[in-house]
């Protein structure tokens, strides 16, 4: 008993007295710092949303998540007046509810909290993440939506060259063109936006100063003290 008490005391003293590194920089995108705690939180959020167990996360997953955080940071830096892009509280609540509806066991507050605790996350973490995500979506929408044009001939080409052969191959009857035109138009518009976004991201990456601080095992040759 005495020994156990001494061990507890020792542990308590050690906990109180030793300073631990709790966060560090893992990347800098232009002048925006990405910290390890952000990366850790992003990995947890991704695994939550993907429904994957957190203990399956590998170093490669962390690197991939970091790359996505870098891209998100690049897009974030393009938002000049972010208040214009901020979602309304109701919009955010709807989004949150939608996510909870699709997560088994998240319908009750208790279950939802249990899921969040299981991933080491809080409601605020998820909300902040959703806000950022929705801001970027709006930015992309505002930037590219007016630029993409889908004309009738493109819809017809998609219908005849892709949809009809695909349905025929599945043995299904092709619906009339006019019935599916709006859906095809939306698909083509999304494709157009994807292409533009891809090109924009290439440009942003090319112009940015991106410094990753996660060690790749290489030697440093800096002339610094």
């Amino acid at each position, binding site marked *: 008993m005495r020994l156990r008490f001494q061990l507890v005391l020792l542990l308590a003293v050690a906990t109180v007295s030793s300073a631990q590194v709790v966060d560090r920089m893992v990347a800098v995108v232009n002048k925006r710092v990405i910290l390890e705690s952000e990366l850790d939180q992003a990995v947890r959020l991704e695994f939550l949303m993907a429904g*994957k167990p957190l203990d399956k996360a590998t170093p490669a997953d962390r690197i991939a998540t970091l790359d996505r955080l870098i891209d998100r940071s690049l897009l974030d830096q393009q938002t000049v007046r972010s208040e214009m892009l901020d979602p309304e509280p109701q919009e955010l609540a709807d989004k949150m509810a939608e996510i909870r509806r*699709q997560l088994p066991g998240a319908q009750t507050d208790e279950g939802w909290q249990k899921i969040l605790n299981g991933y080491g996350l809080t409601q605020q973490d998820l909300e902040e993440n959703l806000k950022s995500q929705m801001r970027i979506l709006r930015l992309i929408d505002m930037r590219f939506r007016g630029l993409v044009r889908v004309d009738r001939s493109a819809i017809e080409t998609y219908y005849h060259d892709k949809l009809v052969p695909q349905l025929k191959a599945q043995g299904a009857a092709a619906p009339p063109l006019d019935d599916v035109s709006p859906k095809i138009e939306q698909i083509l518009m999304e494709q157009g936006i*994807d292409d533009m976004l891809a090109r924009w991201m290439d440009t942003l990456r090319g112009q940015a100063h991106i410094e990753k601080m996660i060690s790749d095992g290489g030697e440093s040759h800096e002339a610094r003290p």
Partner: protein
Amino acid sequence: MARFRPPCLAFVLWFAVCAAQQQSVTSARQTPASAPVHSATQAPQGLNALQGLKVTDIQIKSEAVEHPEWLLNSLPQKVNDPLDKYKVRESVQVLYNTGRFSEIQVEAQHTAPDAVALTFDTRENYFIGSLNSEGSTTRPTDSQLITSSKLVLGELFTDDKVKDGIQHMQRTLQESGYYKATIQPFYEWDSRNQQVTIQFVVNKGNAAHIGTIKVTGDSGLTLDRVSEITGLRTGNQVAADRITRALQKLRKHYQSEKRLEAQVVMTERSYHPENNTVDYSFDINRGPVVDVRVEGAKLRQGKIKRFVPIYEENAVDDDLLNEGARNIRDYFQSQGYFDVRVSYNQLQPANDRREVVYYIQRNERHKFVELAITGNHYFSREEIRERMSLQPSGGLLLWGTFSQFMLARDVQAIQTLYSNNGFRDAKITPQVTDNYQGKKGSLKVTVNIEEGQQTTVGTLTIEGNSAVSNDDIRTMISASEGQPYSDTMVINDQTEVTDGYFNRGFPQMRFEYQTTPEPQDPHKVDITYKITEGPQIYVDKVLYSGLHYTKGFVVQREMKIQPNEPLSQQQMLDSQRRLYDLGIFNEVNMAVQNPDGDATHKNVNFQLAEAKRYTFNYGVGLEVQTGQPTGTTNPQGKTGISPRVSFDITRLNFRGRDHTVTLKTRYGNLEKLGLIGYDAPRWFDFEHLSLNLTAFYEQTNDVRTFTAKRLEGSAEIKQEIDRATTLLYRLIYRRVSTSSLVIDPNLVPLFSQPVRVGMPDFSYLRDTRDNPIESRKGSFTSFDIGVAAGAFGSEPSFTRLVAQNSTYYQFHKRRWVFARSTRIGVEEPFGSTSAAIAAPGPGAPPPTSFIPLPERFLAGGSTTHRGFGINQAGPRDLTTGFPLGGEALFINNLEVRTPPLPFPWVGNNLSAVLFHDMGNVFTTPIEMVHNLFRYTQQDRSACLSPTTTVCNFDYVSHAVGAGIRYRTPVGPVSLDVGYNLNPPAFPVTAPTDGTLPRADVLRRFNIFFNIGQTF
């Protein structure tokens, strides 16, 4: 508005922005595909695990942070607040944004089970603190190499920047032929100040030589001829400017052949490391011979070359030919051919020839006789004329100056004048009337001005300012209620306010303005100046480098910019100027360290390059004027030239201060001088006090009577009371002896024995002139009093007082200047002389008090009285006729200085003066007072008798004359001719050349050549 709701993009952004772009995004889903696995609970780690704990302390770990409070205050995470990971992240971002750190990590230490102390552990950035190079004393010099590196003082140090810098330097070295040069950087780290000194050690190696030269294209020249013209030969050392010069020479060669379109370019430069040579290839196309001629009027070839820019540009195109036509038109218009028509045509008489012919139709010659300006009320005619270049005929302008181009320019200038003063609706209409008053060819130009109503400022509102008060801002700006309004004024206000804020440490300050006409009165404009101040930046430390000999305090005391003060661009510039003014630095480069960072306190960096401490000056000069020495035979001297050589050594930075030691030597007919001086500005750290010690030996021969040998030592303290007023306190010791006397030997004991003069002296100077070299307004007053007495170690005892007052007035549109100057000097012996002087020889009568010859007043010459040759005024020795000087002096000068004369070729540089000089040197002060209004020499007939023993020189001599002034960067070069209205007569009872006794009259005409105005 229908909102785009692309689930695909959510996927793209959330899961794999880059990777997913390759995939078909339309089928992706944002929401989880399956139930989350939360059986294995993963507790948050690191910072995420500390959420909500009480923060008991926050520290910043960095050797360079001396004032952590400057940083801590700006952090969103505060002490005693619960830890908020989002705020901690923001805090890291804030610290990173300061630019001072390259890496930051957060450390936490539990101070209690529910409390934590945070430490931001940093790795500092380094900034370029000093850039030096050694090893390249010849071109390109070390300094040029540093410039070519494009590295900037104060900016963030990175390896890549240094690598790029070395590449740039190597390119510069290669241009000079140093292809084998190596550059090694060495670093000296200063972690406290976060700066690094970079020292480049350059080893230039052997310079490359020219290998082969190849010429392609149609040069019309053999390779040998190209080599001859360019001076480029195989084996020559490669040099940066050699190729540039070679190309210039080739172009010049083709220009001399009138091949104005010749194309000469270097197409290739290839280096061969095996033999350290560089091969050059040139592509030359000589183009056709271009002749330019003029039909319809005569125009000299020189003028054609001046007016048609194809000669300058080495190209022939319509733009240049049109410009030539305009220039020719303007020229003829300026000659009175105001209706001239100029056109051109290009001909090709042969394949290799091209001809440009300008056809000039001069038409009738006009005379611009009158310029009328009507309708002007707000501005006077003179104010408008000042802005016009049109000149009616008159004086030397036979035809006047007029062209349509000049008229249009003048109209625009008047329009701008009115617009800038609130007359936004002003209309300026020129009208040209030919055959004015029935005279054929006479031209009158009338400028009709409709001023319209003046727009004034209604209300002025200043918003957004908190650090600078409204009153302070109003002192910076021109706009105020009721004042004339103009857009230019608002723009100027913007500049002034922005500068004012910049100088108070607000580099991100923004200034916007809004102007709104008042609805009830559109000629009143309400102005709103909106200021967004942004953060205020302060000085952390003032750092300086580059001192080898100079003491640090010398630099520190010149710094107007100080730690903890707002970062002011103006104070930085003032500091730089003051450092340059010390005269001991060749270069003073300055920069704000970490210019891109958001830090509220920044270091200011000065990199200094000390000037060479020893400078050697040598020169040859000429003095041209009347009264030059002629030996002992001509008491008046002669008009002639006195050559002079000089050699000076200056030692700057004496004892590591801005003190200077100077050795000056002169050797000439008039003067032989050896001088050592010591100059200590800021004596005892008093900014307005300076000490000057001087010792010299001088042998002067500018007085015809004797050669004076002067050994003098003086100490002078100069006190600058204000910008205009200066006090001088001097103590002078000198020993003067005379030799080569040409005066009556009987006077030797009295005047010419070696004497030691010890004299404390005080001067008061007040100078309010606009320009001391060429004054146009203001005044200059000096008052100097000295007492030579035995108490100060002086052998003779006398007092000396000299006062001068000069004033300058502008008149007639402030273009003419009337200048006047009065000088009065009196000397009064007192007490008795020393024993050495009192016993000049056996049997000699004991003299009472007297003033030795070199201490007496002398006058005459370009800076005193232009009716006399140099030092020819005043009493003379009746035996030999040579001047003796006197104990009193009165000189009065009046001068009218004209505005620049409109002579061709000289621009605005030539002007003229008319002058009247009066005065003389008198025997004694009493004689001066009694004879101040005497115009003629007393008993002049006696003076004209060769055998007389009495001749009085106490009268006022008058001279009139004229001169010209040619303005140069070192002051006006003057040529004056003076005519003495009443020159003195004097006997020469025993001429030194052995001729018969005679009587002389001083010459009436005297000429003077000088640099600077007379006074």
